[in-house]
């Protein structure tokens, strides 16, 4: 009896599976009046929060601009579970099963890198949203992005520390298991050493692992080294805890970081201690750099009235979508190859996060980064820095 029941259950499930599959694979309708764009983002797993914010921006852009070349644009969202193997299958599925003409995503450079080979071998272009690692577009003609790169961000923050904060000695705290963090730390220190001309300008480097919660060991050493500024790029939770514990230890030096800090969690975890923390980012809703930015902010606030501020990655998602549609328009066709060529030729596209020109690597050349500071429990515009 048990077995019969189990068998029946399996049978029903197989049937539902089959029907589910049948439902979702409508790739045969190539010449219909729909253009499909794939969005592959981490919607579960460690990177889910970032992925969702990007999808929000993309969906908002889609609502505002639902058509191109007289055809309806349909977004197909696939979850890559913050996992590399899943990221590649998700990308392959979007291309093969859903027949998308281009991809958007993903949050997390390593996931984009993993999907890089899929887009390359299928010759379908992809536009990265907030993947700042240089390796995403390196040696891949089909991957583009709308955000600036880690080297740029490193230079920006080094400049900020050196010029605005007049720092001579800095300490670095990096998340060794996070490629973003070690990369950014490296670019920062290279740039800072160059600016000061002092080989020993980095007085202390502390390492921690993702998920760590106690940083007193690192911080005690840093306190002893007495730096002018502490640069601590990394995950928002750990970073907020670092700042809290640093302040508890009596470290008063300014603590600065990168774009990943700009989340509400950073402030909820850090509380009063993160007041004055400074970070670079792509976008600021109170000071949009472009007209498009103004439109985006007002539309975003309409669509999500409950949000206090607009995440930069949402703005980037918005830009990625519009950049892609712009390229489709210029190509005059929804053929992936044509889109790729049009994307590569993008010059001075006016996005919400600034003007974007795609260089020979497929990267967005941006000259300006926003510097924000936490003030009264809010991310507040501080400055915009341009670096040549």
């Amino acid at each position, binding site marked *: 009896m*048990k*077995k019969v*029941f*189990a068998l029946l*259950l*399996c049978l029903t*499930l197989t049937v*539902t*599976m089959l*029907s*589910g*599959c049948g*439902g*979702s694979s409508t790739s045969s309708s190539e010449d219909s009046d729909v253009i499909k764009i794939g969005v592959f983002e981490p*919607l*579960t797993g460690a990177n*889910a929060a970032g992925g969702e914010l990007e999808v929000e921006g993309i969906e908002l852009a889609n609502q505002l601009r639902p058509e191109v070349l007289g055809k309806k644009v349909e977004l197909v*969202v*696939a*979850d890559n579970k913050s*996992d*590399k*193997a899943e990221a*590649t*299958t998700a990308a*392959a*599925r979007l*291309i*093969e*099963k859903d027949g998308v003409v281009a991809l958007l995503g993903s949050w997390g450079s*390593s996931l984009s*890198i*993993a999907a*890089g*080979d*899929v887009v390359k*071998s*299928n010759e379908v272009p992809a536009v990265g949203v907030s993947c700042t*690692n*240089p*390796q995403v577009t*390196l*040696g891949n003609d089909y991957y583009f992005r709308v955000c600036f790169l880690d080297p740029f961000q490193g230079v920006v923050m080094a400049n900020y520390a050196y010029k605005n904060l007049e720092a001579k000695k800095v300490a670095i705290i990096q*998340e*060794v*298991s*996070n*490629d973003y*963090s*070690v*990369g950014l730390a*490296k670019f920062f220190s290279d740039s800072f050493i160059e600016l000061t001309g002092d080989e020993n300008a980095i007085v202390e480097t502390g390492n921690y*692992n993702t998920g760590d919660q106690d940083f007193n060991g690192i911080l005690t050493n840093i306190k002893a080294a007495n730096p002018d500024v502490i640069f601590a790029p990394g995950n928002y939770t750990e970073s907020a805890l670092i700042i809290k514990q640093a302040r508890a230890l009596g470290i008063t030096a300014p603590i600065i970081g990168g774009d990943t800090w700009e989340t509400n969690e950073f402030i909820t975890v850090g509380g009063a201690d993160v007041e004055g923390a400074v970070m670079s980012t792509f976008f600021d809703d109170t000071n949009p750099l472009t007209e498009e930015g103004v439109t985006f902010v007002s539309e975003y606030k309409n669509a999500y009235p409950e949000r206090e501020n607009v995440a930069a990655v949402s703005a980037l998602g918005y830009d990625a979508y519009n950049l892609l549609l712009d390229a489709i328009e210029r190509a005059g066709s929804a053929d992936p190859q044509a889109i790729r060529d049009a994307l590569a030729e993008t010059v001075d596209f006016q996005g919400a996060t600034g003007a974007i020109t795609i260089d020979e690597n497929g990267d967005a050349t941006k000259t300006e980064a926003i510097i924000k500071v936490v003030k009264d429990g809010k991310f507040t515009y501080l400055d915009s820095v341009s670096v040549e």
Partner: protein
Amino acid sequence: MNTQKMTFSSFIKTHWKTIVFLGLLLIGIALANEFADSYLRRILNLCAIYTIVSLGMNLVNGFTGQFSLGQAGFMAIGAYTVAIFTVPVEMRASVFYLEPMAPFLANIELPFIGALILGGIFSALVAFLIGYPCLRLRGDYLAIATLGFSEIIRIIFTNTQTITNGALGIKGIPTISNLWWTYGIALLVIIATILLVNSSYGRAFKSIREDEIAAEAMGIGLFKTKMTSFMIGAFFTGIAGGLFAALLGTVDPKQFYFTLTYNFLLIIVLGGMGSISGTIISSFIVTIGLEWLRFLDEPMAFGLDLPIFRPGFRMVIFSLLLMIIVLFYRKGLMGTNELTWDFIRKKIRSIQSRLGRKTSIDGGEKK
């Protein structure tokens, strides 16, 4: 089965079904490699790779009865070996952009097959080092110790910047893995496992699973035999890791978090601890099933707009399904049985007889 006296024609006669099956499989691979889209190919590749890892794991856990959870670590070793030795030398500078690759490695490039085998060998060597202290431990302690070792391997890979590029991982691995590679090697591994399991060594493995004390009294050296099994399992896993790296084109330490091992544990438990065919079947079920259930992540599954259909829901359903299967089939789908032609025939008969009810209550069993 007395292989010694078997002539070629009698071999054909007894195994024609298997030969035909293998032939069809080859044609299937050829067709898939040629005509299937990259999405399908990718999933099929993953199926084969998971099969290899799970077989390696089942050899240790299912056949030898040693509860080991080091799979993720061994995969990492294989994957990194392939990554380190196959990334073209001229690309290395751009991959290792934070710190250059260690000079003793920087100019060594191996052909894929060489790197793959080397990965397997490294993995087996590390298994030896791990096994030396761990294989003397009892069941649950062994599990936690091997799990720990797999974590140590991952942590080491995160920290050896000049060799493994640390947290950045290695990019630009030539994506050589295709269906021929993965299925070819999976087939070799399957055949090797079958031959091994049915040899004197295989029986020694099983005797340890059944009763360590009796096995020892029969002259089986526990440590040596466990070690053999452990190292072979690690070798297979290392090779699979290499294939995995060459499929994705990139590796980084986070891929090999210890939770990866749970996937394989799930596969072997579902398929049946100690069943080769069960492992193969469940590798496919798990890999394909997860993809299949993807529609549950969409907000409009079954045309219903329910808030539960959101990303992640398929994992819930998938876990539930597995729990149900394991509840109803305590020993997994196959137990310790193998899916042989005889087994299929018996199953069909027993189903027939059950449908026929009274006509033959034991008729089906007797033959």
